Structures are given as C-alpha cells and as structure tokens.
C-alpha cells in the first residue's frame, strides 16, 4: 500500500505543475469551459491510473499532453472537430516561407491580441494544436513529435502550414482594415 501512496504522491508532484497549461490547451481544443474541465479531469484520472506504466526519465509533459489529446479526439467534441476538417497531406515538403511581412502585419499582431486569438480559434484542429504546442508551450520538435505521435519531418511541415494558414487568415482582415 505504501508503494501506491508513494506513487500517487509523485504523480501529484509531477502532474499538478502542468495543470494551468493543460487546462489552457484543453480550452483551446474544446473551445468551451465545461468541456475543457471534463477533459482535464478525465486526463488526470487516466494518467493517474496509467502512471505505473509511465517510465520515469521519459518525457512526462509529452505523456500528459498525449493523453489529453487522445482523450479529446475520442470525445464527442473531438470527433465533431476532426470529422469536419480533412487532414492535409503532411508528407509534402515544408511550405516555402512567404515573402517578408509588412510592418503593418507586425503592428496588427502587437496591438490586436483578440484578432489573433480569433484567427487561432478558426484554425483547423491539427494546425491549432501544433501551433499552440510550439509557440505557447514552447515544446521542442521532438516533444511535439512525441505528443502528437508523428515523425519530426511531419512536425516541421505541419507547423509550416499552420503558420502559413494563420498568416493567410490574418491578411484579409488586415487588408480590410487599410482599405
């Protein structure tokens, strides 16, 4: 019994510091407060149950995010999100970077966080999640690959497409503003 207690104590120590960021990520996925609370709750319950199979020394953060994401994908909200958005082929080479952005684009991204948040919200799920893992959670490509269970080459190409899609999403709003 002591073993169980010890184990859950260390689970708590490892998992609770991730609570805020996991919740933020869950909310971005579900776009709903109640659903994100359910998702986080279920993630922690599953992780606690499966903690004995987690190998200490491997990446705990990526493990938690992977559980959260898989739980989301099999939830009603997740099935809804993935059934409406076809996945692009990620195996193509990385997108060529776009031409230099205008200073106005920079100004826009600085001064209008709400606009940017809306644009991120409208990204297809597989772009939104990879962009958030990279830019908000500041995960390395390796960690993202582990979290999403995809090869590093796919991380790079998908990230590149996500960024391009976000820029494209922001550009018409910007052009509308200056016209």
């Amino acid at each position, binding site marked *: *019994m002591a073993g169980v*207690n010890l184990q*859950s*104590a260390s*689970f*708590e120590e490892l*998992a*609770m*510091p991730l*609570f*805020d*960021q996991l*919740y*933020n990520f869950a*909310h*971005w996925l579900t776009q709903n*407060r109640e659903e*994100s*609370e359910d998702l*986080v*709750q279920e993630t*922690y*319950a599953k992780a*606690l149950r499966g903690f004995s199979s987690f190998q200490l020394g491997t990446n705990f953060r990526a493990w938690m995010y992977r559980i959260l994401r898989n739980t989301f994908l099999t939830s009603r909200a997740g099935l809804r999100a993935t059934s409406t958005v076809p996945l692009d082929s990620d195996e193509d080479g*990385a997108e*060529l*970077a776009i*031409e*230099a*952005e205008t*200073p106005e*684009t*920079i100004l826009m*991204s*600085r001064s*209008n*966080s*709400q606009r*940017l*948040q809306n644009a*991120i919200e409208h990204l297809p799920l597989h772009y939104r999640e990879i*962009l*958030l893992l*990279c*830019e*908000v959670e*500041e995960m*390395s*490509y390796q960690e993202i690959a582990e979290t999403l269970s995809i090869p590093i080459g796919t991380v*790079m190409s998908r*990230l*590149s497409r996500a*960024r391009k899609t*976000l*820029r494209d999403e922001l550009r018409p709003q910007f052009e509308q503003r200056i016209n």
Partner: protein
Amino acid sequence: MVCESWKAKLDIYLDGELSENEMRTFDAHVRSCPSCSADALARTQMKRAIHLAGKRFIPTADFRRRLQQSVAPKRRRSFQFGWVFAAVAAVILVVGISTVNYLRIQSARNQVFSEIADLHVETLASASPVDVVSTDRHTVKPWFQGRIPFAFNLPELQNSEFTLEGGRMAYLEQTPGAQLIYDVRKHHISVFIFPDASTRTRLTENSVSPKQLPFNMQTWSQRGLRYFVIGDASASDIDSLAKLFKAD
C-alpha cells in the same frame, strides 16, 4: 533568389531547431541580409504575439481544488497497528507535515516577493520602463485590454501626490499581469496586478513582505486580484498608494 533556400528554413531557425553549425551560418546570413533579417524580425514578432495570445484560459479556483483533491494520495486505514501507535504516528505526521508545509509556503512566498522585487528593479534599469507612456488612466487601462485575461480599475489621483507614468506587461509564475509605474517625489513605485487564483503560491489576505527585502512593499487580495505595491519610497507613501487602490 538565393534567399529562398534560407527563408524556407527561417521558421526552423527561429524555433532554435537547427544544428549548432547551421545556426551559426544562419546567424551570419541574417545579419548580412536585410530581407531575411526583416522577415526574421516579423516572424519573431508573430511568435511573440501568438505566445501571449495563446495564454488565454485560466482554470477557476474551484476546479483547481476539485482536481487537486482527485489526484491527492488517498490515505488508507490500517488496523494492524495499535491505537496508541496510530495516535503517536498521527501527531508526528501532523506536526511534520505542518512544519514542512509551513517552511515550504514560507519559502515559496519569499520567492514570490523576490520575483516582484526583481521585476521592479528590472523596470527601473530598463531604457524603456513602460510600454504605454501616459499619465492618463483612461489611456493606460484600455491598453491592457486583450493583453491580460482580466480587467482592473485605476484610482483617481487628483489631490494626491502620485503621478501615473505608464504601464507594461509583467509575468509572475508564468501568469500575465499588469505593471503600473507611479512617481512620488522622484521615487518610482510599481503596482503589480495578477489574477489571484492563477498564482500557484498561496498568499494570505495581507501577507507581510520579508524583512530582508530592500524595498517597502504591500500586498493584498481584492475581488480575485492580487496586488503588490513596491518601491523605495517611504512605507507611508506605499501605504497611501495602496489605500487609493483599495478604495477604488
């Protein structure tokens, strides 16, 4: 264009994912190529903006409590030991846990206060201490809209000795918040505001700052927000400014 091949890797470069050698080569190129350096700057700004915009949702205190309870280790009853032993063990456990907990909380609090002091010093040392420069609270307050996930009120300063210099974003335990700079008789005072629930270190309603801190400081919690007023001004000045905020 020669730069096309560089630009294809620009994002990977900015993500810090190139090998050490490639990073060095890229650094040299970006420094010498105006087009790539402008592009790199724009993308860095975009990365920064996404980073800030992405930290958007904060769990409620109630949900945090519920989740904490669900993962906390369950203590199982055991009847293998005698009651006396159990009682003694319980007392030792309670005293031990309380002491460890007290020391842990005390140390975490001191760390928060040190972080606040560091943020204040960093602002004083900065070439551009404020991001929004204005003495008008109706200019400074709206500037924070969309940058931080909460709203707050700024006090009316008429008939007081304080002047508002401006504001900037600040981070405490990875939580975005507001920093406001006030002047009183050439002393700079920072007022930091963060959502109370999101700072992991629990502070009591009016925690007292540690004595070794080289500044005067006051902190309190009000309507779900945690306020820190810090500066080298006298304790009574800090108190007066704190009262203006509390009264608002």
